[in-house]
């Protein structure tokens, strides 16, 4: 494999392989940003990977009060799934259990789309006949009586079929501390890119997986080629100095958004440099035959 070195950080000449996904977005508002964040975090807590969680979800950014429909502070959440049916199921369950329940919350469409998913149209039945439909211009809302007043929820939200899931960066470092520092700056840089999320804890995953396992019925297992403790025992992807690998997985509403997020992450890691951060950046793929979207690291360099 050819390599490039930028400011002391080695960049593998490889690519991240990503897949088409269905995605939607909602805007959650509350009386304070604290409670808008709380509802969003609760809704996206167990949503790291479609393998085990049904969807991948995360906070795409905060929205100033002046820009939300009810002039209260808001948080925009993105959800990604492999099918429209699963996305609808996850959206409905998560808004019902995590946003409807959160004090003072309201929930609006976070995405315009020709195709829509049911939001308030599905949750209105919680009102047990006391729900109220309101239309203002082209917007349709449901008001559902709850114990702190009313839960206001837009009837539908948009769906996109142009979304991409599985953009990634593999960050290789000499110690766990420096590698984590590099992953943190990359995660922070990616959080500023619109229309993307990094669904793992704090945007970072330490247990990258490969497809399949030696055990029957286990769909994914540890990516042994990147496990530093197995470096001498297996065919490894790591060089002798590497002691830690962290991955950032990126889902975006568009392919361009994923590319922009990966570029922002790479730039942040390079900026931190090899002494305080990572010695090497790589990316995960399956040989290029499974996913239609390929993000070559050499095209993302600052």
């Amino acid at each position: 494999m050819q390599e490039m070195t930028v400011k002391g950080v080695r960049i593998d000449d490889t690519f991240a392989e990503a897949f088409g996904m269905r995605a939607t977005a909602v805007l959650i508002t509350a009386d304070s940003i604290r409670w808008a964040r709380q509802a969003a975090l609760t809704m996206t807590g167990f949503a790291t990977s479609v393998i085990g969680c049904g969807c991948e979800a995360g906070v795409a950014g905060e929205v100033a009060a002046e820009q939300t429909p009810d002039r209260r502070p808001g948080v925009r959440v993105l959800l990604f799934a492999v099918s429209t049916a699963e996305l609808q199921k996850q959206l409905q369950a998560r808004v019902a259990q995590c946003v409807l329940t959160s004090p003072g919350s309201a929930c609006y469409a976070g995405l315009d789309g020709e195709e829509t998913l049911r939001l308030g149209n599905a949750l209105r039945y919680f009102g047990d006949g006391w729900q109220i439909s309101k239309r203002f211009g082209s917007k349709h809302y449901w008001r559902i009586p709850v114990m702190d007043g009313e839960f206001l929820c837009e009837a539908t939200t948009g769906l996109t079929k142009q979304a991409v899931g599985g953009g990634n960066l593999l960050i290789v470092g000499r110690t766990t501390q420096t590698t984590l520092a590099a992953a943190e700056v990359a995660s922070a840089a990616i959080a500023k890119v619109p229309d993307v999320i990094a669904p793992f804890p704090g945007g970072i995953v330490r247990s990258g997986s490969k497809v399949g396992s030696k055990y029957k019925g286990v769909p994914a297992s540890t990516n042994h080629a990147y496990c530093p403790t197995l470096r001498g025992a297996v065919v490894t992807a790591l060089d002798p100095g590497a002691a830690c690998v962290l991955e950032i997985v990126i889902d975006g509403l568009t392919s361009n958004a994923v590319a922009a997020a990966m570029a922002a992450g790479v730039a942040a890691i390079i900026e931190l440099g090899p002494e305080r951060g990572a010695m090497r950046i790589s990316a995960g793929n399956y040989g290029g035959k499974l996913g239609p979207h390929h993000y070559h690291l050499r095209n993302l360099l600052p």
Partner: protein
Amino acid sequence: MNPLVLTLRERPDQRLDLASLVPHRLAGMTVAEIEKIELQTTRRRVVLADVFRLRMGEAAHIRIEASSNRLDRIGHEMAGGEIVVEGDVGAWAGRLMADGHLTIHGSAGPWAASGMKGGTMEILGDAGDRLGGPAAGETAGMRGGIVLVRGRVGERAGDRMRRGTIVVEGAAGPYAGSRMIAGTLVVVGRTGPLPGYLMRRGTIVLDEGSDCMSPTFIDCGVHDLVTARLTAGFIAPYSARAARLFSTPLRRFAGDMAALGKGEIFTRP
């Protein structure tokens, strides 16, 4: 933009039916064709040129000048474009209007915006009885769009309204929002007796309250609801006065319990 201007020569001696003078019907017509449009409502034939001076322009923008309250059905089934009226209009202005803008720099007669489906109608003067109401035999009145009345309205504003928004900046007569099926009616001025009479669903917002609230509306207490913020945001571009109403918590009355009882009237606490 060069509007098509119709100037009334004098107050007509019979009521005239202006239903055919809407942008989508005049589009593509010549001056001669427009001048021959019949407007009479009695057996005495009246063509447009008899009563109006016509200055040709784009049919999408119609101006009616020196209007009179004998001109009925202005903006009938209007599907787009704009009609601006200088002066008063008669009955049924904007009836079944679906889109576009109808502005009346004067007062409107009864049944303005009757059965309106969409678009924007603004009346700078007063409006008569049954604003947005249904015609005889119809089960629903206004079912979309927004109506703004800067002056007062007569009895039963929003009668059998099903959808859409009415904002009245002046006072309203008795039975405002009677038999409402849904939709939103905001009255900034004082409202006559029994607002929301037999309403099923829908929202009435009263700034200065009513002369007599029906005992079949039940006090639900004072609330600061997100829906008030959305309503304010929606009507603010049309009426800053009405939008200000929502800046404080409002008292909610549920009713009419003599009907379905799922409607509401908001008032100052």
